[in-house]
């Protein structure tokens, strides 16, 4: 088991290398340069060229990539922003934490709303407790996050004046951004949990448990649920990707200073160090979450635990 965890953590290294390379490569393909973006359209070409040279932007792609990796690995230096001339880490880290906080609230909310309702819908199939949440979830899953966010803004800030419309200064300001990203996810969670639970309830071992004389409560919560949770746990882990993407929208809408809006802002200036650091942080975080999901999986399912234990090295 420990071997497996170490192996998965070591796998982070190629992940980071790969993500950084892809971002360098894609940025290299796009037109424009940081010098022109910073100095403006009216600046003379000579100044622009000089600035690009100073920033190290003109180096060949591979050399830039190798330099960057060496600097990060050897000096733990993530470079300096082309645009603000500040250390990248100091700039990205606090904003990354804000995004993570938002995404975590989103995960917790979407799980707390979606999973219990999904279980209920499966247990009370065809009753109003099933049909009404299922129908609503169908609608909500189809609404894009930005539409939902604007509706919330309109209702709670503009009309009712209950919640702040921008920033993250108090716990109230988390409510709307978190809802914006978690409601569509909760809707998907509900449908996913419901179908997984329905499948589990029809399994033979559930009938065996009933034949033993176990009460309906024990049959559902002990036997059916634990087996139904396996795919749900995976789904919750995968949700995180969607939530981070969704938080870019929410950050823009509610003027939240997260890493998503930071990356979007700096793409305009081709601020390579900041964009790469932000993206790599998100990728690392995602990989670690997926590892956690696998560990939870192994905790729930002994068959998977046995598989991990038998994997060598």
């Amino acid at each position, binding site marked *: 088991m420990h071997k497996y965890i170490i192996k998965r953590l070591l796998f982070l290294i190629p992940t980071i290398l790969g993500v950084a390379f892809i971002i360098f490569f894609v940025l290299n393909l796009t037109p424009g340069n940081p010098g022109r973006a910073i100095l403006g359209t009216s600046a003379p070409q000579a100044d622009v060229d000089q600035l690009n040279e100073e920033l190290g932007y003109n180096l060949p792609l591979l050399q830039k990539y190798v330099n960057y990796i060496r600097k990060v690995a050897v000096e733990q230096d993530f470079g300096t922003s082309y645009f603000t001339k500040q250390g990248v880490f100091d700039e990205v880290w606090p904003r990354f934490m804000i995004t993570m906080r938002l995404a975590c609230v989103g995960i917790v909310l979407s799980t707390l709303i979606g999973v219990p309702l999904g279980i209920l819908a499966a247990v009370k199939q065809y009753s109003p407790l099933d049909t009404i949440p299922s129908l609503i979830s169908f609608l909500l899953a189809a609404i894009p996050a930005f539409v939902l966010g604007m509706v919330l803004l309109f209702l709670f800030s503009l009309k009712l004046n209950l919640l702040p419309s921008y920033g993250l200064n108090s716990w109230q300001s988390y409510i709307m951004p978190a809802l914006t990203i978690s409601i569509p996810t909760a809707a998907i969670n509900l449908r996913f949990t419901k179908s997984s639970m329905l499948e589990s309830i029809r399994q*033979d071992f559930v009938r065996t448990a*009933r*034949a*033993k*004389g*176990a009460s309906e409560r024990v049959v559902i919560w002990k036997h059916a649920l634990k*087996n139904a949770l396996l795919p749900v746990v995976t789904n919750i882990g995968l949700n995180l990707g969607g939530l981070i993407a969704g938080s870019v929208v929410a950050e823009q809408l509610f003027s939240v200073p997260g890493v998503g809006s930071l990356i979007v802002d700096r793409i305009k200036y081709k601020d390579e160090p900041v964009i790469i650091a932000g993206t790599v942080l998100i990728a690392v975080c995602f990989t670690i979450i997926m590892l956690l999901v696998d560990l939870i999986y192994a905790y*729930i*399912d*002994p068959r998977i635990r046995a598989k991990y234990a038998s994997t060598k090295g």
Partner: protein
Amino acid sequence: MKDTILEIKDLSVIYKTDLETVEAVNGISLTIGKGKTYGLVGETGAGKTTTALSILRLLPAATGRVLGGSIQFDGEDVLSLSESDMCALRGRRIAMVFQDPMTSLNPVMTVGDQIAEALLVHDRKMGKEEVERRVEETLSMVGILPSRKIEYPHQFSGGMKQRVVIAMALACEPELLIADEPTTALDVTIQAQVLMMIKELRNRLGTSMLMITHDLGIVAKICDDVGVMYAGEIVESGSVEDIFSPGRHHPYTEGLFGSIPDLKSRARRLTPIAGLMPDPTALPQGCVFAPRCKKCQERCKTVRPKAVTEGTHRIACHLYGGQAAGSAQGISGGQDAFRRKEEQ
């Protein structure tokens, strides 16, 4: 009355969906004596499992309905018990072994926990050590090392899993054990082992048993009474001697015996029953077996046959209805051959 553990009278069960109504069990009656084993035989889809699930009231809640009849267990009407009384009955007094051991164990619980659950459900106050002791006892009773109680179902082979399922069913020493094709999913050598074990445990614990099977060999080995089921009806029933000795039989029973391979016989081919079971959503008006019956007469197609009883032997067929016993001549020697084989 006191010698009877289970008495089913005129039981009818349907599965109803929006699209169709499946008539799974149509007015069957059977009686199991205390300490006796009743074999319910018939091909797939005859309604054997439905009958078993009705006894435990485990029919699929969304579709299964008991239309009529009564099920008396030890003098109590099972069908009118409350759900909580039913829970107290299930596992404790009537236990069931299911057909497929691969799927009937919970994959995320150790086998020890699953057996312990069967005990704890019916006796919450049982101490931890007592539970562990009983679990180990039950496991060794079915021939599994007690130390394997901490293992999960995926670590057991098919035959071993079925032993675990049987251990679970016998943990509370039930008065009636329903075994729903307990050996069908196992290969032949394991079948014999598991069967011998069931037989031995039944004798030791004095459990009554409802043995559901489509294997006449199993019936001959361990049953006292037999019911032959076809399309939701018991077409012939009686003691094992009644069914296995030559004489008057329902044409379907004859067909079943004709489908068994016999090494002694020179016949190169088996004689299967031609045709398929009738569509349970549209059963024939007359005798349910009429469309496949070689001896089908005009009235078989329109009138449902009444059962004729002779001692313990009961046949529902027009061939014998109200006629002299002589009409049963010329019945195939299938039973004869089978009997000879069994005796060897």
